[in-house]
């Protein structure tokens, strides 16, 4: 079977996404990991907060399958799903969130700071909007260094009200940078519905001000996400500049661990559950004869078992040594420069 063995490297997991069945498996994996995180929290293994993205799995997998592993991705703190889709292992994600050395940041980052240079993922940022300018710079570096690489910045609808969003879109537009800005519009910025906080409900409209294509996409359909991404990525690689894609999606859980999401409109969640991204792709795979008509439930069970094995591996793994506190603050405190070299 596909990626369910934890011995797979992030790069191998990424490459496996070429398979349709693997795309479905990964989406189920993301859902299972988020559910397991909720449970790990209750069991006292997770500190601080977490920001789950149940319901947004098609966006993650649609992006990951449309770009290359050495394209750069910046992302917000709602990043567990994106990290898993891009290739970070379940042990890497769960390990980080549990603060263990097997975590993708050695347990020093936590839920909001997932990272894996081998698949282009820069540390996910806990500050709204921070990743958009950084993606511009990654695109600028690619072009200056003569590389055919692009950068993708993933952020939420709430980010579209912060200065960094507007500065980054303008900057990318005037320099025609190879960047794809992907807004996950899940209708809520933290605890507030978009109509209370944002002058437009369709974020894609904001592309007009920055003279770039703005496209609204069905974020529940992985193929629609991928199709929009492929168009924007091709444009970026051709040197024609950035695009803004708006993924219409929905998070099934609250903003963070402590949020029961009582602010939802009545019936809203039920409406979105009818368009669950996993169900949508599963139906397609049945039609494409890649999945047996009764194949979804056994697949879900298989994935849940694999995630449980990963969780147990994490819980049996060590906490970081005290020496890690002072390491990697600056070059002088690191044991040699192990800088990851992009695009050599």
């Amino acid at each position: 079977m596909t990626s369910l063995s934890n011995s797979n490297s992030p790069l191998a997991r990424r490459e496996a996404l070429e398979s349709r069945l693997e795309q479905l498996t990964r989406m189920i994996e993301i859902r299972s990991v988020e559910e397991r995180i909720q449970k790990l929290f209750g069991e006292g293994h997770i500190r601080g907060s977490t920001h789950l993205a149940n319901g947004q799995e098609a966006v993650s997998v649609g992006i990951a399958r449309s770009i290359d592993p050495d394209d750069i991705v910046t992302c917000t703190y709602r990043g567990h799903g994106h990290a898993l889709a891009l290739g970070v292992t379940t042990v890497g994600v769960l390990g980080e969130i549990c603060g263990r050395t097997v975590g993708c940041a050695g347990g020093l980052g936590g839920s909001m700071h997932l990272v894996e240079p081998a698949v282009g993922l820069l540390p996910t940022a806990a500050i709204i909007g921070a990743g958009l300018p950084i993606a511009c710079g990654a695109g600028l570096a690619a072009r200056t260094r003569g590389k055919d690489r692009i950068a993708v910045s993933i952020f939420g609808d709430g980010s579209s009200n912060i200065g960094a969003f507007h500065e980054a879109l303008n900057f990318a537009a005037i320099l025609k940078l190879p960047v794809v800005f992907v807004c996950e519009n899940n209708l809520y910025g933290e605890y507030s519905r978009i109509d209370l906080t944002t002058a437009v409900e369709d974020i894609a409209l904001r592309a007009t001000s920055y003279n770039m294509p703005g496209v609204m996409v069905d974020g529940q359909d992985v193929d629609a996400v991928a199709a929009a991404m492929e168009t924007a990525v091709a444009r970026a690689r051709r040197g024609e500049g950035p695009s803004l894609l708006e993924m219409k999606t929905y998070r099934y859980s609250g903003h963070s661990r402590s949020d029961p999401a009582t602010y939802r409109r009545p019936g809203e969640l039920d409406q979105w559950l009818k368009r669950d991204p996993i169900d949508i792709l599963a139906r397609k795979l049945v039609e494409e004869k890649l999945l047996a008509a009764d194949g979804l439930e056994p697949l879900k069970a298989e994935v849940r078992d694999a995630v449980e094995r990963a969780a147990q591996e994490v819980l049996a793994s060590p906490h970081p040594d005290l020496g890690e506190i002072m390491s990697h603050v600056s070059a002088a405190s690191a044991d040699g420069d192990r800088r990851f070299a992009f695009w050599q």
Partner: protein
Amino acid sequence: MAKIWVRQAVLRALDDAMKEDPDVIVMGEDVAAAGGPFKVTEGLLAEHGPSRVIDTPISEMGFLGAAVGAAVCGLKPVVEIMFIEFIGVALDQLSTQAATMRYLSRGRLTTPLVVRASAGAGQGFGCQHSQMLDHWFRGTPGLKVCVTSNARTTYGLLRSAIDDPDPVVVLEPRILYSEREEFEHDPAYRIPLGQAEIVRPGTDATVVTCGALVRTALEAAASSRANVEVIDLLTLWPWDRKTVAESVARTGRLVTVEESTATAGWGADIVSTIAVEHFGKLKAAPHRITLPDAPVPYSGVLEARYLPSATYIAEQVDALVSTNQPPLPWWRNAA
């Protein structure tokens, strides 16, 4: 040896670094076509082209963030912040993103970024264009901060900052740009970050200072009744504990001269460190000469008093040396 303007030392450092390393790029407002608002980047565009010398919109969050991303992905950006106050709207990218990139990636990603900015008072730019603001950066693990004091230190510090694998803030006292000085141009010249210089030896007191106040402190030392040692700290973080401690061990007295407000000035850390670790070497309590805890005044009469003058420094040092009691600052002494 030829005479150059201090601002030309910036240009020499940038130009040499760009010639030696194709990954070095320069970004900022009006740095390319206009040659820089203070003319420190004049000619760079013609020499190195628009892909490496980049005019940006007035959009510090946008272009400083882009520099962070470019640095992570293999370039070595040198970003100009025209007046250091302008970084307030972009501080997230430096203090929260660049400063933690290495830490969060466990050393796999680094940010070889230089933020250089004109800074400091003395020219009547008013309270929003006259601060040093080094305290915004000194307290952030992952950042280094240095301050230039003449053409030679400008060149030597900038080259080291560009060589450094981590983010470095280089504060350039704006008032020095139009100073004309002897300068020996040597592309191999560096001042290692974290290394201070004794610019005047003495026996009675150690004056630690930096930036534009180095020349003021030297003037004060020349007129003081005491035999004053003057140290140009050069790097504010990480600062040179060894040079300062050894000097204080010889003189027995420590005076910091800071273009910083009293509460947040860099001297507080130095005084605290020396007092704790070298208490037995001190003949008098350490003394700090700082700015008052007030914004920079516009009025020329007031700004001249706000900044420590050579006369004031000499009076304060002489009082300390003759009585072994730290004198009060002028704003607490007013009749």
